[in-house]
């Protein structure tokens, strides 16, 4: 599975990264999921951008090892993953906010990207 991520991720071409950032932003904004006001301190200890990106791609392309399907499909998968996190209590507490592990990855990714 990680092979497909490496295939998608290309340092000389930023388009997959931009696409992923767009998907993450879409989930947070258009789906009305509310990112909490997280301070930067918790994120300082988190992985590098490419690791976060790999983990996010792993979530959204779990059953699609090749290719990059439509972003709406990615969006739906992230939403499903977030809902599943909450259902199975896969939560992180960040600065007091309970967020799902996938949301945590997404916020970390966005923060690192910025």
């Amino acid at each position, binding site marked *: 599975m990680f092979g497909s991520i490496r295939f998608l991720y290309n340092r000389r071409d930023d388009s997959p990264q931009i696409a992923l950032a767009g998907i993450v932003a879409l989930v947070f904004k258009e789906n009305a*999921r509310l990112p*909490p*006001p997280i301070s930067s301190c918790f994120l300082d200890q988190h992985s590098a951008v490419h690791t976060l990106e790999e983990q996010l791609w792993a979530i959204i392309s779990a059953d699609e090892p090749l290719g990059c399907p439509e972003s709406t499909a990615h969006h739906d998968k992230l939403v499903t993953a977030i809902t599943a996190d909450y259902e199975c209590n896969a*939560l992180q507490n960040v600065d007091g906010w309970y967020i799902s592990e996938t949301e945590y990855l997404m916020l970390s990714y966005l923060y690192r990207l910025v």
Partner: protein
Amino acid sequence: MLSDLNQFDSPATLEVDICIVGAGAAGITIALELIDSGLSVLLVESGSLEYEQSTQNLYKGENVSFMDFPLETTRLRYFGGTTNHWGGMCRQLDSYDFRKESSDQWPSWPLSKPDLMPYYAKAQELCELGDSIYDNYSLRADLPGENPFPDDTTRLKPVFFQRSKPTRFGQKYVEQLKRSHNVHVLLHANIKELVDTEDRTKITSISLCSLKGHQVEVKARQYVLAAGGLENPRILLFSKRHNINGIANTHDLVGRSYMDHFGTYIGKILFNRPVSSDAVFFQEKNFKGTRIGGCLAPTEKLLNEKNIGNFIFLFGTGTEPDLSIEMLKSIKQDISSMRWPENLLTKLSKIVSNADTMANLAYKNIFDTDERLFDIESKKSGQLCSVSINMEQFQNNNSRVLLSNELDSLGLPKIKLDWQLCDEDKRTLEVATRELAGMLGKTNSGRLRITSDLEKNNPSYSISCHHSGTTRMSKDPQNGVVDKDCKAHGIENLYIIGSSVFPSIGWANPTLTIVALSVRLAEKLKRTHTTRHNV
């Protein structure tokens, strides 16, 4: 009729069929139910019809609990008892609460909810609660519109309580008792000793005295202790004429397993859409002649799956006052007036302790949300509300009422309270909080933010003053102090009533169940003891 021990020529002796010690919700209910029963009844009250500091001081004691609070402020010692300051929140215990069994040592109630249902109806009336509505409120057609929580009720469900006026039992029922020909209310009468036979199977008399030194000995056929969850065990423990461990304490259970509802402020919910501040979850509603409030409670499935105590989440419109901004304004004003800010340290500490407010401001700036985010108190709708939790405590041998070495003004040992929480209690808080966060997240209704104290696993607990469990009810004498009829195990004529008999306490406030149990006990007394013997 009503009289005052201070008017008695002492020493005196009274002979009655039934002597009830304590004129709070339980004692007054039993006395009311025994009016015109053909039984002569003496209702003994330590205080007067009004509050008196000298009597209230008898409630002072030693508190070595995990929380420090003065014991005399958690209850009231005059006619009407603690109903003189109760808040009036009422609800029956859930069926699950009666079945709850923590361990072999702490079995469930020997009663089921259907056993108590007929008596809850009468209790509803005595507490002036109007129709029994409770969770039927959820059948209202317009409830979905005012419910900010998801429809998924598999783990957390909306539940409803009713609010009594609140009924002050003393004021409400004193005239009825005064008019009675067979019930005699005796004021300023403090219990000095419960006297038993040498073989400890029967109570023979009670010694009473006033703070002014007047004394009376009461000989009754039946005795009912209705002095509250702290005083009931105290009286049993200090009455040690024939046994150093006191009365009804063969198995060293009197005073053990002290329980109270403990709570804490959890934090805030940020809803993903504006919700109405008019919802029943944020403010109580007048409905069909009663007052209703809503909260969230766990389903039986969740309680069984996680093996945690019962609990409720209570919601409030608005969050903590925006003190930090007020403090900042005040400091700014002082500086602009060229003077050193008054109480600067205090103001700065308010700002720091209200860091949440600052976080919200930052959130507004970062995510460009509108003002609805801040508060649902100041407007008809908003996205932010406060959350508190009230929890049931697990039975715990080490949480207990003991006798202090200090003596009160009557020369009797004061109470020593050692209230303890155990790891299971703390787990209830953690599991409940994650469940609420999970429910909000999976339905994408909103997000939960807990306080920094909770985050550091150092919550500030609140008490409810629902003193319970210290003379618990059990089928087997080895597991409790009274049987299912509230009769002390092994003693033929002593009954104990109040929340001290609760084997488990659920989340509901205890008064309604105390009154229901009292109505049930009165019926039992009427049925069993029919001898006429007027005071």
